[in-house]
């Protein structure tokens, strides 16, 4: 048994299979960062920090005539989202029900995916993460209200990246509101805006809950690294006669290696 304590839960193999499948199904569409940045891991629950290859000079050394430096590491942060499932629903799953109410799991999946995206794109100070948008040296480009001008703004972002010597293809993370505008819009002549934007960036265009506005970022690799210890997992906390308390968990960190390989659109 590992730290997730799944074997202690009053959940059958079938129940766990349904829970895991539901979690995967809800998480995969929403995990935008994993579709756009490099991924390393999973290195397991015991993995605690990333080597940054840097050191800081310490003012005090243990003895006179000695200089001292301390290695810098990036500690992994943990995200934890509890949720509760009714045991009656899990019994129905065992009976073969295909419409069991797993709404709390769905909501937990949405929350943890949003949190991961937000940390990667906009940073998370307490988690020690600097986000892609805040690390960028490029000025943010205002998106404005007129959706038909989005191609012009995205093209400007691509131009800025090219001018900085950052080659394509590029990816585009769109916050939910912007994504909806893009899907709903056809330009003059009936050409879908979605397709036009994809032609400009040459790479994936991704729905990204947790992202404010949009971010254009290089897809050449090596610029952005998401490092995962424990990959997204469902664990067990406790139960009573009526409900099982579970949680979604992951440990990760993120760092920007190239601060001119992305442009924020706000």
């Amino acid at each position, binding site marked *: 048994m590992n730290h997730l304590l799944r074997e202690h839960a009053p959940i059958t193999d079938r129940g766990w299979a349904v829970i895991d499948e539901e979690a995967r199904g809800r998480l995969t569409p929403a*995990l935008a960062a994993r579709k756009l940045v490099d991924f390393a891991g999973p290195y397991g629950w015991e993995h605690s920090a990333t080597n940054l290859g840097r050191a800081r000079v310490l003012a005090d050394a243990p003895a006179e005539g000695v200089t001292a430096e301390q290695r810098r590491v990036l500690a992994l942060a943990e995200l934890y989202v509890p949720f509760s499932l009714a045991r009656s629903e899990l019994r129905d799953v065992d009976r073969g029900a295909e419409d069991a109410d797993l709404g709390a799991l769905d909501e937990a999946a949405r929350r943890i995916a949003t949190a991961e995206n937000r940390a990667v794109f906009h940073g998370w100070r307490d988690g020690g993460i600097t986000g892609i948008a805040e690390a960028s040296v490029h000025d943010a480009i205002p998106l404005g209200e007129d959706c038909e001008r989005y191609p012009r703004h995205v093209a400007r972002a691509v131009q800025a990246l090219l001018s900085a010597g950052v080659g394509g293809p590029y990816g585009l993370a769109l916050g939910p509101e912007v994504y909806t505008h893009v899907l709903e819009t056809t330009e003059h002549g009936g050409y879908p805006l979605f397709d036009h934007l994809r032609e400009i960036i040459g790479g994936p265009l991704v729905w990204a809950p947790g992202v404010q506005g949009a971010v254009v970022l290089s897809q050449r690799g090596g610029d952005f690294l998401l490092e995962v210890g424990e*990959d997204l997992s469902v664990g067990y906390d406790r139960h009573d006669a009526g409900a099982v308390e579970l949680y979604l968990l992951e440990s990760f960190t993120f760092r920007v290696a190239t601060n001119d390989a992305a442009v924020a659109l706000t």
Partner: protein
Amino acid sequence: MRAARVTFSGVLCHDAGMGFDQYHEPPEELPDGTRTFARLCASLTEEAEAIGWYEQRLAVEPEREARAIMRDAQGEEFKHFSMNLEFLLRRTPLWREIAQGILFQEGDIVEHGEESEEEATEGAAERGSAVHGSTSLGIGSLRGAE
């Protein structure tokens, strides 16, 4: 060369200076789940070897009482092997799924094996399989999944 062998009493003996060779990667770099998985794989191999050894001894031993003891001991190894296998299958959904199409089935073993592997791996690829020895959801990188 092997680091450990199972005696007929079931005791593990480590050859001097040759410990822990069930790992093919630096153990300190492996997650706990993978180390446990590797230990049980090694144990499974040892139990299978012991079953084979008893089978050979039984084939040549003429004394009835000695044969009865060895038969009893081999039964222990059958149990150990089966418990190891069940543990590994529980931790490895894809392995379990393939095994289900092969074990305890009548008919052509090779045919069952090919069919079971094809069905299981296609299904695993569609749903995204978990990392060996892990109970995570096995999502990992989603590069290429728009």
